[in-house]
């Protein structure tokens, strides 16, 4: 059980959302029973929230954007290197790999997203803490609460229901990607789900309205591209993914 000294010693990483789940839970438990520390944590959070609100600084002058735009017009991007220029490829094999890499490179960004999603599903979900109220969420994430995504009511998608929230600062879609973790209805396995704005230019290789599926190790990733949004679902295995696909498209509550 954590004491005051241990808790206060962790105030910074706690409020920055950098503690591992175990330590976070211990801090939360301590704060629930210790008014003194609770007040100190609250004070710290309020103070830095206030600084964020008032002292972060002004917007850029309008003229700066024009200046940059003008500068960009006169600047050249260095020519894009051939995709595997950095890899050491024996000259003999290069011609054979050429055809392969043309298509591979075109699809790579999407597969890279799927890989990162699987990595998060397997390792990153330690950061997920089931919270059921906005207050709990703010307590857990402190001043970073604005970046967290919480369903205030249970969302039912087909047979899945989820409410847990998490924050991912550098997910496959960039910062502020919201992740949800759901439990598979019959098997109790885990399903993770995230949506984010479609990366610039992705429609060149992945048309809007299309679904793509990736198998990465044992995991199956289903990715939908629709209306400028990418939504992905990571399943523990192909069987769970199939069950999901067999369910008619759900209505959100």
């Amino acid at each position: 059980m954590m004491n005051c000294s241990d808790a206060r010693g962790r105030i910074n990483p706690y409020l920055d959302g950098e503690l591992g789940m175990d330590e976070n839970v211990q801090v939360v438990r301590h704060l629930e029973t210790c008014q003194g520390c609770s007040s100190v944590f609250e004070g710290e959070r309020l103070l830095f929230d206030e600084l964020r609100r008032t002292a972060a600084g002004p917007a850029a002058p309008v003229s700066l954007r024009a200046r940059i735009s003008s500068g960009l017009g006169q600047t050249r991007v260095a020519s894009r290197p051939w995709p595997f220029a950095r890899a050491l490829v024996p000259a003999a094999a290069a011609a054979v790999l050429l055809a392969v890499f043309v298509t591979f490179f075109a699809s790579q960004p999407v597969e890279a997203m799927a890989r990162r999603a699987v990595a998060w599903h397997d390792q990153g979900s330690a950061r997920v803490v089931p919270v059921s109220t906005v207050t709990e969420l703010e307590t857990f994430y402190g001043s970073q609460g604005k970046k967290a995504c919480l369903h205030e009511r249970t969302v039912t998608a087909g047979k899945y229901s989820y409410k847990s929230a998490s924050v991912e600062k550098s997910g496959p879609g960039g910062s502020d990607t919201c992740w949800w973790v759901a439990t598979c209805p019959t098997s109790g396995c885990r399903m993770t789900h995230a949506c984010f704005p479609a990366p610039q230019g992705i429609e060149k290789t992945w048309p809007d309205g299309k679904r793509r599926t990736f198998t990465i190790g044992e995991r199956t990733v289903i990715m939908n591209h629709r209306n400028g949004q990418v939504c992905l679902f990571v399943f523990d295995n192909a069987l769970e993914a199939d069950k999901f696909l067999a369910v008619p498209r759900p209505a959100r509550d």
Partner: protein
Amino acid sequence: MNTGDREAFEELAYPLLDSAYRTALRMTGQPASAEDLVQEAFMRAFRAFNQFERGTNFKAWLFRILTNVFLNDYRKKGREPQTTDFAEVEPADPATEGGEFKAEEVEAIRAHLGDEAVKAIDRLPSDFRLPFLLSTFEGFSYKEIASILGIPMGTVMSRLFRARRLLKTDLKEYAKASGYLRERK
């Protein structure tokens, strides 16, 4: 020149202009220098845009360039604002350092902070000020800050926590001296 590249770059970069500018302003202390710094950083980022892996964290990548330009070009040439030395007494136990604000104390001084907070931030030595700006105002993780500044994560944490301690002490002194907070017995 590839117009697609320019559009892609602008789509990623312009939304970050305000963040870049306000960070540059706290780095250099002067609006004109801040503008020059941002201009230079954006140009360099655009020239190097082929090295950016699409789909990864553009903000961290851009801020790394911004920070490098600041550290190499602005700090060296002595354009950094003057900072006063803090009499640094390393606290034996962070819990008893006395800089903490209780919730009701923050409430009491909130309306009166005014410019003082900005001045206090500007008084931080830049080694402490940079991690503070990147964490508290720009929301980068410790790992991202380590990558942006090119220092170990442990160093990021110790400088960041110290920056916050210094700010709290500074603001507490100000609040007491201005009569917004009563002395604790």
